[in-house]
């Protein structure tokens, strides 16, 4: 049986088609190497000593399960660079992701890491149709966020041209897409919808756009969103996945068969575990993805708990890549919210409120997507003692909450002051988040 692909099925790196048996051998060797490389990182040194782990004691890939987990909290406790496994002068770049305390979690890269990362992004870009003669419009944020720079160097590695537009100013995005006629768009799925809407508003039909492909990631999305993006812009949209703690985008991505995202298993060992028991779930069942980086130099992580819920599929793929595929991320095993591509924890909102005198620690976060963009409303109960007859005082309180939330989370929220005891409390503990996007089936 031959599968019809919408374009030539090209493979960037022959490692992607390595036989599973050969890859397991490579993974075992690399696992021993990484255990050796992190042996002097204080967190792992202590955890390995407790569990009696040495590189020599790793005899098979099953020994992975003897290794300790690493969580976001562990990274945070060693802020900023406690997980560094190379001398500081080997760092070539730092990225970071938002944390619950307003401080980012930093991720370091050596020059070799940056090169590996570009290769990994090149793999999914080529799998999704990118060729050296193409031009790519990148509307991801550039900065500590890994999206912009990760994809930027991936596109360059393929040999294609980059238009590093970054996010924001949607009318300008539309103008540049129309004038420069790029072949591919790179951004978050919700921003792609936003651009699609602006394109429609300008009266530009799907057939008039030059875009052939969109490589979207950075937040969970659905098949319905894919259909809408493809229809409105007349392109093929591909999903990619990654997180900065592991490397950034490039951990996995879709191929032309579009039946899941191939995990780059020669670089990352993946486990899919029940988040409560931490036992592996059966193949095809949903569980929390846990990654061990096999090749990262500056800041390897062992059994990093992503909190992302997805399922794995090891059935052969018609594209010829042999790596296991992951489904879309369907949820989280913690309370993290992804809002316009930014990670936000309810505890960050709580911290913002604690900074503002005059607010009770009773709040409710409501997330919705009325159009194409996420909107957040934070309802805060005010305390009797802080209420004044002056409008200006109340407005000031409102504005301070607004500013603190923005400074800690980086996102703008609608702040609503409400009467005490109006927010629901269940079992003495308040319900903190209502995500209407979930009810609407947006992820």
């Amino acid at each position, binding site marked *: 049986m031959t599968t019809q692909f919408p374009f030539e099925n090209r493979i960037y790196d022959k490692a992607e088609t390595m036989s599973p048996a050969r890859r397991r051998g490579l993974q075992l060797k690399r696992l021993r190497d990484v255990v050796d490389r992190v042996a002097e990182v204080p967190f792992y040194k202590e955890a390995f000593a407790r569990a009696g782990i040495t590189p020599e004691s790793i005899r098979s890939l099953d020994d992975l399960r003897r290794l300790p987990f690493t969580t976001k909290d562990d990274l945070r406790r060693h802020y900023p660079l406690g997980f560094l496994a190379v001398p500081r002068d080997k760092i070539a770049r730092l990225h970071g992701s938002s944390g619950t305390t307003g401080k980012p979690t930093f991720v370091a890269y050596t020059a070799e890491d940056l090169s590996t990362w570009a290769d990994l992004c090149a793999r999914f870009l080529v799998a999704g149709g990118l060729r050296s003669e193409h031009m790519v419009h990148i509307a991801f944020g550039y900065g500590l966020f890994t999206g912009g720079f990760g994809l930027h160097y991936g596109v360059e590695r393929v040999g294609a041209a980059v238009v590093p537009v970054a996010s924001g100013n949607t009318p300008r995005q539309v103008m540049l897409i129309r004038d420069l006629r790029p072949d591919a768009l790179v951004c978050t799925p919700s921003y792609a919808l936003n651009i699609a809407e602006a394109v429609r508003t300008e009266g530009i039909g799907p057939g008039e756009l030059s875009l052939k492909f969109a490589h979207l990631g950075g937040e969970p999305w659905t098949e319905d969103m894919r259909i809408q993006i493809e229809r409105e812009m007349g392109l093929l949209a591909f999903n990619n996945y990654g997180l900065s703690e592991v490397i950034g985008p490039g951990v996995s991505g879709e191929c032309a068969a579009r039946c899941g995202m191939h995990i780059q298993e020669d670089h990352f060992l993946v486990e899919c575990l029940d988040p409560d028991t931490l036992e592996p779930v059966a193949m095809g069942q949903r569980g929390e993805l846990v990654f061990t980086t096999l090749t990262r130099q500056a800041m390897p992580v062992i059994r990093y708990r992503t909190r992302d819920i997805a399922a794995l599929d090891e059935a052969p793929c018609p594209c010829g890549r042999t790596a296991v595929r992951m489904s879309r991320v369907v949820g989280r095993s913690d309370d993290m919210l992804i809002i316009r591509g930014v990670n936000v924890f309810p505890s960050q909102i709580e911290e913002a409120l604690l900074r503002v005198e005059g607010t009770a620690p009773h709040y409710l976060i409501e997330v919705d997507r009325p159009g194409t963009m996420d909107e957040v409303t934070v309802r805060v109960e*005010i*305390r*009797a003692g802080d*209420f*004044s*007859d*002056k*409008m200006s005082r*109340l*407005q000031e309180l*409102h504005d301070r909450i607004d500013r603190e939330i923005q400074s800690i989370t980086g996102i703008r929220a609608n*702040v*609503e*002051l*409400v*009467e*005490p*005891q*109006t927010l629901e409390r269940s079992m003495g503990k308040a319900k903190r988040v209502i995500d209407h996007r979930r009810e609407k089936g947006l992820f």
Partner: protein
Amino acid sequence: MKLNQLSVFLENKPGRLSKPCHALSSAGINILTLSLADTHQFGILRLIVRDWKRAKEVLESAGCIVNSTEVVAIEVADRPGGLAAVLEVIEQAKVNLEYMYAFTFRSRDKAVLVFRFEDPDAAIRLLQDNGVNVLKDVELFDRIGQ
């Protein structure tokens, strides 16, 4: 010389104003005058009643956030320029006036206004020195009658 005004926090949602009004009416408390200030996010209901302590209890037990503030009732001539004359005194002395609103009743050719000053005591001295009639609560309530 000062009156106690009650302020009630209102969420900006339909029906929010009826809660405090209903609580007061159930307790047989008459609102002598009120003013409503609002933004698109929230509002403040300010009101004057005879027995502010009892009204505050009633409102609080109904779940309202209530604040009491001292305000000043001032009599002004009910004709063009009556208010302007009083405001001129306040302005010239650079006394800070936060907001004001009126009572609905008229006695003879006078109107009565509620003034919220940052420093009510200093404002009262200033107004009295300039011949403005500042009403005591008893006097005011008498005029309103039952």
